[in-house]
């Protein structure tokens, strides 16, 4: 991946969520940690262009996010609250929905849906209604919907916060096994403990940009 922040900052009215920041991110794996409200989600939304920088600019794979009307198509995003992310009421329809209009045949789409569900041992979810899923089931469904479209960069905003031990391990293995570039925002420090580069946010500022062990150590200091 190739993400560049060029004095890019984001505010909501008078509240500064992310202070202007200059960064170049090219690693295949990036961890983002920090206290609640420190700006992690806002930072992530700047990467896929859902949030346009209010100062400076963000360049992702050569494109300035400010020039794009919508979010970048090659950046997949799993929201912190997956319920808003599911668009169609039935899980398999929702996964298929994201694949439409990309030149796949119906049969190809069906196969892709099957495949991604199988990858998470979640075939059982295919015909379930999204609104009756348990918290963790919903998170898996959201993950499937995004992975099915094969994004180049995948942003996961607290992907394990409702998962049980088994699904957590599954997501961890999945992340480790993904060829895609992955940005993981999390409070679950184990998830990023192997990452070479981890950003630590504190009150909208970058408090560390270091390998996991250092960033986590610094985070523990801040958290007391």
């Amino acid at each position, binding site marked *: 991946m190739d993400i560049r922040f060029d004095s890019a900052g984001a505010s909501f009215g008078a509240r500064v969520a992310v202070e202007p920041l200059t960064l170049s991110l090219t690693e295949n794996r990036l961890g983002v940690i920090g206290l609640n409200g420190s700006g992690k989600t806002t930072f992530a939304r700047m990467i896929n262009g859902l949030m346009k920088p209010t100062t400076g600019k963000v360049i992702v794979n050569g494109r300035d996010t400010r020039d794009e009307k919508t979010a970048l198509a090659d950046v997949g995003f799993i929201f912190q609250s997956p319920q808003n992310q599911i668009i169609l009421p039935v899980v398999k329809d929702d996964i298929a929905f994201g694949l*439409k209009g990309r030149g796949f045949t119906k049969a190809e789409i069906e196969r892709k849906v099957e495949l991604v569900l199988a990858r998470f041992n979640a075939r059982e979810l295919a015909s379930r209604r999204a609104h009756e899923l348990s918290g963790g089931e919903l998170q898996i469904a959201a993950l499937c919907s995004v992975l099915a479209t094969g994004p180049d960069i995948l942003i996961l905003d607290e992907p394990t916060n409702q998962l049980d031990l088994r699904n957590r391990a599954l997501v961890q293995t999945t992340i480790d096994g993904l060829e895609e570039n992955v940005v993981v925002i999390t409070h679950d420090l184990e998830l990023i403990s192997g990452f070479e580069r981890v950003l630590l946010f504190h009150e909208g500022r970058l408090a560390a940009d270091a390998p996991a062990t250092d960033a986590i150590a610094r985070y523990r200091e801040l958290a007391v």
Partner: protein
Amino acid sequence: MQSLYVDGDSALHRLSPRAKIFSLFLLGFVLFLGDNLPLLVIVTLLTALIYRSVGLPLKESATRLKPIFLTIAFVALFTLLFNPWHDALVALLRLTALMLFAAAVTATTTITQFMDEITALARPLERTGWVKADDVGLAVGLVLRFVPDIIARYHALSEAHAARGLKVRPATILIPLIILTLRDADNIAAAIDARGIRRHVS
């Protein structure tokens, strides 16, 4: 309606909610009695002053009022198409005055105050046996809460479309919008019960 409560300590903030709601009610009535242009201009200017006194920065006022003002302008322009300019101007002034005053009232009255006042107003109706005053208050409060929520959910869904590279179409947005808000409504109903808020029924 867009303009929800703004923290502050202006005269209007301190005015009793009852007085504000009653004035709003009166204005909604009186404005439409006559069509004397100079008088309407004066009233409109007055409401603008009142709105300014809430203490919102100009820029924020503009963003808050823009959508509703656009539709008012639209109404006035349409009136102009088929009617004398006098009628169009009257429509423009009436609607603007009402909108500004309503915005000033909603910006300085918390939802809690609204609910309390509506509940008090509805109390006499309880004698008919058809309604519970607390429910009327709660319903009004819930609407005030839901409107911005629905608009926010609309944006969240367009974002979800965008994040997955999908085009936003009315059908693909209206259906999940309704289903998601229904599910939310269920959860909110559960929360209201779990928090023992509607104790007057049990």
